[in-house]
């Protein structure tokens, strides 16, 4: 491995940086290094979107563009990619891009501080979808906060941008132009990146190399999307040990499927991971859409979420309920471990030094003759979008001839780790699939958990709702129910017939 610099594309030029600490955030580099102050800091924790930029990455023959939070992404993780900021979008003559013009025309900015971030989220949407509906627009804006407008003009601007004339630069065509792709190809790395500047940064290309590297240096930080590790630097001002970045490892960025399971590699981003999961379990789409925000899902990885092991992480309950298995790698050795056995206590995991999660395997459960599988996960938080769960319940129930023959129930936010609800499961198994059984299972929750009270919810609330969610599970899957069981995510009032 040779020492060299980070290379990325900005405004059509390749920039090489070899003196910058690799943990410099992209936002710091843009604002302080380049004086490109259009990109703003509103929180430095990935929760407000003022810092949103778009990253481009050559994937096969197409460049994929994603909105990401520049405040928590280390500059080194942009190696080999293109960075598009709010300053990039105007034509050389100063003409505004359609998403910018639409925001002007719709009165979409007031104080304007959030605006560059909205511009970039809308730009990512513009490149991806020429006719997005309201629901998609709202999803794409889930990571951007505005405190001045009521968002209405911004939502309107998304539609208006699509009907304005194509821009000179950064049209959909320009975004995929041959010269652009060639430029991308010119910086695509075929070997590992090794940055000597403190704290040191290695981005291996091969899985064996990664395994060796980490085995030799188990004190290093394994970095994937960095949506948590970024905060160690921006919020906790921690000095990181050397970093091993897994995002470039060939083979970790893949999703593979067999008849009965999906295997999701450690470098797969949440966005793609949940797409694969939801293809089999459409009931999980709401959970997927409520997982943080689009820019976070564009950086963070599913395995990173599992490895982080936060008691309130949203992926764990459903993966516990589905009976997922981790593929763990240490040096030359690979083993598998049920996710069930992975969380030992608060921030304690069943990992050996130098061992890491290489992939997660998720069983694919099918209905079959006489067997119905109910799969669901419910997240409860103060806000629909981009919020941390007060609690999150997940349920996989097997019903045969009207009886529950198997049930796996897990919750986040109820204990020091994401955990199965064994008493509740026991109360359900062998019982008829009925409201009474589910209510009884809900009562058993009180034996499973002793949750804490904190700023997200009180212990009483958590217990009551964890139980009630089992009732919801039943009602939602009760074909005979004649009444709504959920508030629509996109709101509509009752219609009144005009007189």
């Amino acid at each position, binding site marked *: 491995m040779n020492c060299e610099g980070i290379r990325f594309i900005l405004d059509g030029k390749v920039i090489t940086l070899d003196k910058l600490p690799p943990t410099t955030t992209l936002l710091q580099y843009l604002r302080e290094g380049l004086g490109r102050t*259009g*990109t*703003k*800091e*509103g*929180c*430095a*924790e990935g929760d407000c979107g*003022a810092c949103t930029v778009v990253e481009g990455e050559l994937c096969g023959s197409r460049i994929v563009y994603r909105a990401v939070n520049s405040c928590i992404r280390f500059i080194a993780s942009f190696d080999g990619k293109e960075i598009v900021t709010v*300053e990039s979008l105007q034509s050389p003559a100063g003409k505004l891009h359609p*998403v910018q013009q639409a*925001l*002007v025309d719709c*009165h*979409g*900015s*007031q*104080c*304007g501080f959030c*605006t*560059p971030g909205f*511009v970039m989220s809308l730009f990512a949407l513009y490149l991806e979808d020429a006719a997005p509906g*309201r629901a998609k*627009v*709202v999803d794409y*804006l*889930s990571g*951007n*906060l*505005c*405190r001045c407008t*009521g*968002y*209405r*003009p*911004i*939502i309107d601007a998304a539609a208006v941008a699509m009907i304005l004339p194509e821009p000179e630069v950064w049209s959909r065509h320009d975004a995929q132009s041959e010269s652009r792709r060639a430029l991308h190809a010119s910086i695509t790395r075929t070997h590992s990146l090794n940055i000597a500047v403190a704290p040191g940064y290695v981005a291996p290309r091969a899985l064996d190399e990664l395994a060796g590297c980490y085995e030799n240096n188990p004190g290093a930080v394994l970095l994937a999307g960095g949506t948590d590790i970024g905060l160690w630097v921006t*919020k906790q001002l921690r000095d990181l040990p050397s970093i091993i970045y897994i995002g470039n490892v060939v083979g970790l960025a893949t999703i593979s499927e067999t008849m009965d399971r999906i295997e999701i590699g450690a470098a797969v981003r949440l966005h793609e991971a949940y797409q694969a999961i939801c293809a089999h379990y459409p009931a999980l789409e709401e959970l997927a859409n409520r997982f943080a925000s689009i820019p976070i899902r564009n950086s963070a990885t599913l395995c990173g979420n599992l490895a982080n092991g936060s008691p309130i992480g949203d992926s764990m309950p459903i993966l516990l309920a589905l009976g997922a298995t981790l593929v763990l790698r240490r040096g030359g050795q690979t083993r598998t471990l049920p996710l069930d056995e992975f969380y030992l206590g608060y921030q304690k995991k069943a990992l050996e030094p130098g061992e890491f999660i290489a992939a997660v395997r998720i069983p694919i459960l099918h209905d079959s003759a006489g067997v119905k599988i109910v799969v669901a996960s419910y997240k*409860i*938080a*103060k806000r*629909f*979008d*981009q919020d*941390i769960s007060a609690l999150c319940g997940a349920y996989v129930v097997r019903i045969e001839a009207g009886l529950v023959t198997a049930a796996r129930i897990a919750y986040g936010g109820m204990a020091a780790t994401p955990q199965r609800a064994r008493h509740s499961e026991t109360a359900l198994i062998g019982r008829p699939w009925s409201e009474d059984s589910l209510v009884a299972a809900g009562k058993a929750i009180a034996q499973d958990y002793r949750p804490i009270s*904190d*700023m997200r*919810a009180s212990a009483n609330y958590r217990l009551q*709702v964890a139980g*009630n969610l089992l*009732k*919801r599970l039943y009602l939602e899957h009760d074909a005979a129910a004649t*009444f*709504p069981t*959920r508030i*629509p*995510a996109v*709101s509509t*009032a009752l219609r*009144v017939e005009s007189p």
Partner: protein
Amino acid sequence: MNTSTAKPCPSEVVGKAIRHESAHLHVAGRAFYTDDIPLPANTLHAALGMSTIAHGRLRAIDLSAVRTAPGVVAVMLAGDVPGHNTCGPIRDDDPIFADHLVQYVGQSLFAVAAQSVEAARRAVRLARIDYETLPAILDIRAALAAQSFVIPTQRLARGDPHAALAAAARRLRGTVEMGGQDQFYLEGHISVAIPQEDGAMLIHCSTQHPTEVQHKVAHALGRSAHDIIVQCRRMGGGFGGKESQPALFACAAALLAQKTGRAVKLRVDRDADMIMTGKRHDFIADYDVGFDASGRIQALLVMLASRCGYSADLSGPVNDRAMMHVDNAYFLEHVEIISHRCKTHTVSNTAFRGFGGPQGMLVIEQIIDDIARTLDLDPLAVRRVNYYAITERNITPYLQPVEDNVLALMTDQLEASSDYRARRERITVFNQHSPVIKRGIALTPVKFGISFNATLYNQAGALLHVYTDGTVLVNHGGTEMGQGLFTKVAQVVAEELGIPLASVRVSATDIGKVPNTSATAASSGSDLNGKAAQAAAHTIRQRLVDYACDKYALTADKVSFTQGRVTLGDKATDFAAFVLEAYGARISLSSTGYYSTPKIHYDRATLTGRPFYYFAYGVAVAEVAIDVLTGESRLLRVDILHDVGRSLNPAIDIGQIEGGFLQGAGWLTSEELCWNEHGELKTHAPSTYKIPTARDWPAQATVRLLEGEPNREDTIHRSKAVGEPPLMLAIAVLHAIRAAVASCGKRGVVLRLTAPATPESILRAINAVQKEGVDG
């Protein structure tokens, strides 16, 4: 369906839906905020050391490790302040750096200047502070029990409430509880101090109140006002949070700059911003109300108590305004309002859009709702029987007559256009068949008094230059925080001079140009500064008219200014050519303008008078759904009719209404401030403090401006202030939730729903009504 409409009024520039003057810069990332201003190469970066306990004596502050930390250039403590170590807006009870005593977690103890932001922030963590912990009072009830107040209790009364209460047909007692709210401007607090020659200091500051920053910095540095120049081109949001709060950061930056002789930037991160700066006051209210069978209030006793935090800050006027909005839209013949301003060992609460008004209104709206539930009436019917009338029943508790009441008219209009009645019936039927999802609808009114309660702030100045190419530069005392003030002022000036809007530039607020400014607050920005700028433009226009009459032997009525042209009898010429000619004739093309609001007066001792020049009105209908299993809720539809008089700029006004409404909805639903038992704020970043997102704007929303009702007072083009009033339209959301919760239990049951109506709060309220039994 998502419509926002307004009819423009027939002038050239004023009344048009003109885009924000900086919109093209905002979208391009080319609008400069304080953090974007290029600075001298040797600029230092500052950070503040904060108290980690809520209440205690400072035994020792050991900064030796801080001083020797990498990159540290200077350190500043209370004892190093050459002037006054204080930055409070009204009283001197807010030290810049705590001296001997700390009174909240996050209180500023010392400041560090270093080579980089990171170096400064890392260094402050190395301080070793030795405290002697004292018992802390952390909430309103504890403060009331301890009789702990920052300023004296106030009483506002009219009639004979106790006797009237005893005689009332029905009587009800209850409690109202509401949380505070963080301003959460997207741009956090920031100040840059740049030393100038001979002891002067230039301050770039994100502030709604440059003059106060000037005064506080001058006092801290031991200098005079004329040594300190404060500038602000724009803020990334203010909402009241940058009225008194910037002074701390400006003073700390200026002190370090004075000490080092180098420019110092102090930008606090989001967590420090939320921990160190004041918020909307949380309130509790106990009430005792007497009413008749129609729900008409016969007597009312209200005890208001707010959490002011450790110092007075703006709590006096905030609580006064709360008292003066307990009436909201309703005539209270016999009333007593007691207001306690509680001292707690938490951050000192401050201004936030509405300035106590929302809290006062929330109290009476719940009282009305409680009466309606008790009597099993439509709350709207109870609202209507209590509305101020036009010629009688129209005197407020503070003795100002309500002379411009348009609420009955507006309520009729909105009730019809929103289909309130039919939808309410439809919802009742829906709820009977929907055990899990319940809907609710409510219509609530807003009447909000416009003017600063403190009469002296109701004045403004402007400075206007016409250059010889016909372009205009105008400066005024207001600040731009996104509300579109600069746009409106430019419109007013363009209109007055009959020139295109493009010929007018509004320059950064600069107290070197316009001095002794009032805070841009109390919704007064365009009322005051629009008039002042108009006066300046008018003066110049008058000079030009006089010159023309003189030169061309015309009468004044033969001279007019429109669309960049000047008509001189039967000739016409370009404005630019004409001003060049006037310049040649040695006519002054620069003028100041000044305005002070007429008619207002207010006696602080009795809390009576005419504190408000006029009232702004609004009505909203909200429909929500709640989930009885989880307490989750969602706003499904909103219909708003709002009164801005004759709009200066309907696009901007609609923007203020929508934004204010959603901000209010956040206050009352998802935004929850939580402190732990040590007095530490646990919700100090957007990860834990949840303001509304795009999804929270309902797909069905109709926002309309009231038409045909110009301001009855002689305001700028007969417009009305719009900054604050729309926030309170969101009370309809809380009341729609109340209606939904009510449908979970028996009729006639009073609800216990505290604000914010988080899922937990809603579920608690549902549990409580269900305990009382359910209708069979």
